[in-house]
């Protein structure tokens, strides 16, 4: 960012009338192009250009011309922006805006647009890819056919000449040359065959080595020598077999036909799959837009909407409970260590912050084991026999306790900071006015603290609302009621969604995106309401 500081200042705004131009403006405007500034600018712009070139190659390869145009346009705009002395505010705003677009707006739009498709396992690619997959998967070896040794050759240049398969029948050691026209026997004298039966040289042909052949891999894989029973295809570079595709796509009926059984599967563009008359689907489908189907499934499917309200209630309770518990404990510690009479405060502060410094996912797994009924430390230490994670309320309590342990250092830190910002004179004054310690805390300190901390509490609430790890790594959402294995007692909406979308019938990204949109709406609504209330509170105490 050094570039902007040297190349342009507020000087651009100086009136150009001449008369009003003041000394400092002139100095700033005409100048200081320092060496460091220039170097930084060159290096950073060079990096931008380098990254653009690096990003361009895959775009060209994927023929994503729209993406390439955006890339070129943006890069040109960046160069223009930082090479002119104009548009100073934009120089500051553009980096942040680009980051915002790339990491916030694009993912949100992408998620929202996915919610209207059936994107997921079995529906990832387009229809053409599905047809290729179906046909490739149906190529089987013709029963009783010969297994040939294969040499890939050409009649022309190794890199570009027309391909020929030189195949050897292992039983008779007869050699044939095959191309799109079919098989032709080669006279014995014209070919040299090694002990494995593979042709090493043949008159009129150049045998490709593995390197040359693999450079033409796609052609070789697609190459088929027609035979009465099917076609001779390669199996790698040294073997060939006679195979036959039993399923073929016919454009006329937009269907896939099985040549062996005569069964047909017709394309269903609404479902993105080939469907037979009796409803049987081919596994390889493609991605299609499904409109609001994912959203209506959330609302109408009773196994989803049934436990939804209960899960939502617990989700809110968990988020509120976690925030309240961590805040209460954190504030208590902060207050205790705020007393100047306390000795060794620095040491205590370090000790209290320790849980915050440990990787939370590892701590969550440790806590899961601590709550184990037979081997866990909690039961052993207190001589209990509680099935912590197996009972509905004990599991919920355990999850909140773990969250409290993980989260209180954060609250302790922010509360300590906020407490230090409150002038001691205020509490002293209230003491002089005859307030007890509780009263002065309740009436003076706490309201002032809340003004500073409420926004943090709200963001902490939003974080805990979607605290996937806290539940998934400890209880996995359990315990589950005997009559419903999809929604457990400690499930948050996000873990519940994860199970619905990824836990069962493969990944269903479209459906998961739809539920994410719902959760987004719920969190946004709750946060908006709480922020409104905070604003009122601020007005009250400000």
């Amino acid at each position, binding site marked *: 960012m050094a570039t902007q500081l040297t190349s342009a200042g507020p000087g651009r705004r100086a009136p150009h009338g001449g008369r009003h131009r003041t000394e400092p403006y002139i100095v700033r405007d005409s100048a200081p192009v320092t060496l460091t500034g220039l170097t930084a600018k060159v290096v950073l712009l060079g990096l*931008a250009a380098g990254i653009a070139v690096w*990003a361009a190659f895959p775009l060209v390869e994927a023929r994503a011309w729209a993406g390439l145009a955006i890339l070129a346009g943006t890069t040109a705009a960046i160069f223009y922006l930082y090479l002119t002395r104009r548009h100073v505010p934009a120089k500051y705003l553009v980096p942040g805006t680009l980051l915002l677009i790339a990491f916030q707006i694009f993912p949100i739009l992408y998620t929202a647009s996915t919610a209207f498709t059936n994107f997921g*396992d079995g529906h990832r690619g387009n229809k053409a890819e599905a047809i290729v997959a179906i046909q490739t998967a149906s190529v089987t070896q013709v029963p009783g056919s010969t297994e040939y040794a294969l040499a890939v050759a050409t009649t022309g240049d190794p890199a570009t000449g027309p391909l020929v398969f030189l195949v050897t029948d292992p039983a008779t050691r007869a050699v044939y040359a095959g191309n799109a026209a079919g098989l032709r026997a080669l006279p014995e004298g014209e070919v040299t065959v090694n002990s494995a039966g593979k042709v090493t040289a043949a008159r009129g042909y150049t045998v490709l*080595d593995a390197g040359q*052949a693999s450079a033409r891999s796609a052609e070789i894989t697609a190459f088929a020598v027609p035979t009465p029973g099917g076609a001779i295809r390669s199996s*790698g570079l040294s073997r060939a077999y006679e195979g036959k595709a039993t399923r073929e796509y016919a454009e006329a009926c937009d269907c896939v036909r099985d040549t062996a059984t005569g069964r047909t599967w017709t394309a269903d563009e609404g479902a993105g799959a080939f469907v037979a008359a009796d409803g049987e689907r081919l596994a390889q489908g493609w991605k299609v837009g499904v409109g609001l189907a994912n959203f209506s499934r959330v609302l109408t499917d009773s196994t989803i909407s049934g436990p939804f309200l209960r899960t939502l209630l617990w989700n809110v309770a968990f988020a509120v409970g976690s925030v309240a518990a961590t805040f209460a404990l954190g504030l208590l510690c902060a207050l205790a260590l705020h007393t100047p009479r306390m000795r060794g405060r620095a040491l205590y502060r370090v000790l209290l912050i320790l849980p915050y410094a440990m990787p939370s996912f590892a701590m969550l797994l440790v806590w899961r084991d601590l709550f184990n*009924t*037979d081997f866990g430390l909690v039961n052993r230490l207190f001589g209990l026999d509680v099935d912590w994670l197996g009972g509905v309320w004990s599991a919920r309590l355990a999850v909140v306790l773990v969250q409290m342990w993980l989260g209180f250092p954060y609250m302790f830190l922010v509360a300590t900071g906020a407490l230090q910002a409150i002038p001691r004179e205020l509490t002293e004054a209230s003491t002089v006015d005859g307030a007890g310690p509780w009263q002065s805390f309740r009436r003076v300190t706490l309201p002032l603290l809340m003004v500073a901390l409420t926004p943090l509490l709200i963001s902490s609430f939003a974080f805990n609302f979607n605290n996937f790890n806290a539940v998934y790594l400890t209880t996995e959402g359990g315990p589950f009621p*005997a009559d419903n294995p999809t929604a457990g007692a400690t499930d948050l909406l996000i873990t519940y969604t994860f199970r619905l979308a990824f*836990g069962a019938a493969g990944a269903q990204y479209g459906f998961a995106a739809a539920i994410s949109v719902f959760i987004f709406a719920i969190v946004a609504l709750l946060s908006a309401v709480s922020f409104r209330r905070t604003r009122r509170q601020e007005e009250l105490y400000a």
Partner: protein
Amino acid sequence: MVAAALALSLATTGCGGGGDEPAASDSPAAKAAGGRLVIWADTKRTAALKPFADRFGQENGVTVEVQEIADEQQTTFVTASQQGSGPDVMVGAHDWIGNLVQNGAIDPVQLSAEQKAGFAEIALKAVTFNGQVYGVPYAMENVALIRNTDLAPQAPATVEDLVATGKRLKAEKKASEILCLQVGQSGDAYHLYPLYASAGGYLFGTGANGDYDPKDLGVGTPASVAAFEKIRALGEKGEGALKRSIGGENSIATFTAKKCAFLVSGPWAITDVKKAGLAYDISPVPGFAGGKPATPFVGVQAFYVAAKGKNKALAQEFVANYLTVPDLAVALYKAEPRPPALTAAFDQVKAEDADLDKFQAAGRDGAVLPAIPEMAAIWDPFGKAEAAIIGGADVATTVNAAAKTISGQIK
């Protein structure tokens, strides 16, 4: 500014479906040098594969790269394949096949009759899906009963024997648990399956061609309810042999700490058991007295040819014609001791590792772990039902709720 440009390029490549990570280096220079084969494997196998990949590269004048995918291999592979940045060859478990096929991520591998004959029958059956061979198997695995021979010198013939021995040891304070079979709060269908099968339950029926039939769901049938009644009797409200407090994270550790005499686990547990210096032996998981055999699931690790790979001909050559040599299977066995699927390789390592034969004997009548995509719908509800029933829940209600959830997802 750099960050902005980076973010921009991320955004644009993201929507253009361009290449992140490995694909980007597919430069024209590499092509001119004679082609390049990219193999993806997990951490342990990457190291074992490298020498063979290099040898294959030298013999054929091509570059072979083995890249390590540490986590979520299947998802990474499917997503990368779709974007065109996937590998040419993938290494993974056979029960991925159903999902990989429905996503058009792998191609069939055409093996000759002679090549097929080299593999253990069950391994070949595992990689066969809809009548096509989709991968070249290299290792097999299944659970067995591992026992501490100091505590239990005799292999139990039945579950009842096992429970009796376990209870006696518990009464004598020699052990604190009857059996270490991982259940956990969410259940574990894979480890429970031998007992469930012995008690008469099944997950999917088999069609005429021996393939699993997703329309014949075994969960929710009267036989499955009866099977779970027997499981419940072993649970927390019964004998106490099956407990939710024993899960994946502590079952092996509890066994190696000599707190239980019996462990149901697979070859992956042996390293820990050996390290603990226990006297142990391996036998098949016993069944219920008068019940069906306790068949474990047999899983297979395999090499796949990626359908969207850039060098499929070379990938086919590597997988179908090069991997069928025993040397590689032996090297992979040394990287992680799972029984090789290639009979010749198995015979070679069997002499130095007696455990292999015992594991294979335990899995001889095993059921191939279903690879059909519908199996994904089973794991979670079945496990939850298992945990609830072991905790003492009513069997019929629980099993029927699980069956309803599963069939709702299969549709």
